[in-house]
């Protein structure tokens, strides 16, 4: 099929719109001037300033810790929840349960943040890394469970039953049969939870205390006053990490796809 001029134009303009702002940001992060919008010459000095700014490094460390803990916890809880929803058949309060899985996905972040903060104050929990982890786990597990349950629905349950018939314990059947099959969904669930946590400003702002500042909170308070060259440099680093991650992930999935295709071809 050949593309008409109209379609080519809309693709070009559409992707220019999606990518130009970020490309400009990356280019101007190498601008020497403090006046961000005036180009005076190439320089990497803002990267140097950024990396010697202890407050940013601390915030990055806190963010990373929160993201690793909350996404791992969310993956375990979300997979259990997906399992309960798809395989759990009937249990009391099932409607409430599935409602609680889907509601956080559409709940505005300001409300999730506010309600969790009021809970933490109510039970007298000190706000800091722990409370952000609890908050992030709660909304991320819902995303994980949606991703994992779509995979659980589509896979053939008789495989699991066969393993049980052949004398596997339920745990072995899960570990040896179900888990390898749903693994891609579990991994993408973890990645999604990890990115959501890295990215979250609103919920973290509500649930954190003076002891823990995450990177988005730091960025937000810096850019509120206007564009800043250090933030441009930081954004460029974050964009680079994501781009690299996506390229690696797509190479891996391509290799797996090719291998699967060869496997299918070999069997015939």
């Amino acid at each position, binding site marked *: 099929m050949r593309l008409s001029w109209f379609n080519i134009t809309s*693709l070009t303009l559409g992707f220019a719109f*999606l990518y130009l*702002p970020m490309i400009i940001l990356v280019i101007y992060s190498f601008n020497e001037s403090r006046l961000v919008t005036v180009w005076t010459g190439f320089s990497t000095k803002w990267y140097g300033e950024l990396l010697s700014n202890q407050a940013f490094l601390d915030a990055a460390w806190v963010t990373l810790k929160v993201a690793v803990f909350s996404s791992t916890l969310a993956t375990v809880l979300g997979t259990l929840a997906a399992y309960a929803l798809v395989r759990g058949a009937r249990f009391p309060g099932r409607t409430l349960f599935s409602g609680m899985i889907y509601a956080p996905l559409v709940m505005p*972040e300001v409300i999730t943040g506010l*309600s969790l903060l009021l809970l933490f104050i109510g039970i007298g929990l000190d706000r800091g890394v722990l409370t952000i982890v609890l908050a992030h786990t709660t909304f991320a597990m819902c995303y994980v469970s949606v991703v994992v349950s779509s995979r659980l629905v589509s896979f053939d349950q008789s495989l699991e039953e066969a393993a049980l018939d052949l004398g596997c314990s339920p745990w072995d059947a899960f570990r040896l049969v179900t888990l390898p099959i749903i693994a891609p969904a579990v991994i993408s669930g973890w990645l999604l939870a990890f990115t959501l946590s890295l990215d979250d400003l609103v919920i973290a702002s509500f649930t954190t205390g003076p002891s823990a500042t995450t990177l988005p909170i730091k960025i937000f308070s810096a850019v509120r006053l206007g564009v800043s060259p250090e933030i441009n440099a930081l954004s460029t680093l974050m964009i680079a990490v994501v781009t690299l991650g996506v390229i690696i992930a797509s190479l891996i999935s391509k290799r797996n796809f090719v291998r699967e295709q060869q496997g299918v071809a070999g069997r015939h």
Partner: protein
Amino acid sequence: MRRVFIIAVPYLWLLALFLIPFAIVLKISLSDVAMARPPYLPQFSWEAGWGAFLSQLDFENFTFLTTDDLYWKAYLSSLQIAATSTLLTLLIGYPIAYAMARAPDEWRATLMMLVILPFWTSFLIRVYSWMGILSQEGYLNQLLLGLGVISEPLIILNTKVAVYIGIVYTYIPFMILPIYAALHRLDSSLIEAAEDLGCSRAKAFWLITVPLSRNGIIAGCFLVFIPTLGEFVIPSLLGGSGTLMIGKVLWEEFFNNRDWPVASAVAVVLVLILIIPIVLFQQNQQKQNEAQS
């Protein structure tokens, strides 16, 4: 025993960290603001019992929301901004989704990745990137002044226009993907048949392509409209002090005015407003699933 464990762990987690917190918001929205720690009354105590506790709750904060016009203006303006930007996102996203569905097969994976990639980059950074473009000495004004299109810099940042741009930019993948999915399934021979039977291209588009991609359009619109309604980051970075949105009002009520009961009441009303589009969205999805199976 094991089955109980699988269900109970996530269930209890969500009860404790989703449902109970929301019940607390509801309770505080019915309380009075007070110079206390935490800054609201009544506090529940076992000595006084439930009766005394419940009798102190009232709807004062909700009546306050209706008397001070800041709040209903903020709700209306959020609805208007969400509706306008949903429409803009549709107008810009549809041609992109359409072109993607028409593209040669070997491009598809790459095009899809290009649409999804921004999802994985920080939302905050994507919004921030527009501050440098739209400000008065920003790149857009530099370009337009340089080309001689305008003689005075345009004021875009800190207006509603900047908020529209920010919303369209960050939410457009949510519009493109469901429409693309609908158009991708569309059988192109239907359009060829219509053209053979004498339809003009434009007419075939309106009579066949648009109705058959209706579910994608509806899904995309809800996916943009629902999260935009409670948006906080975009109006506070791009909208300036003049743009009222309810997410921002809630934030300021809580952090700046420290009025927890009113902030909670604002949250409860926002949830009530959101229930309508969410239920409509659910129905649409269900219909779509039934149609497919």
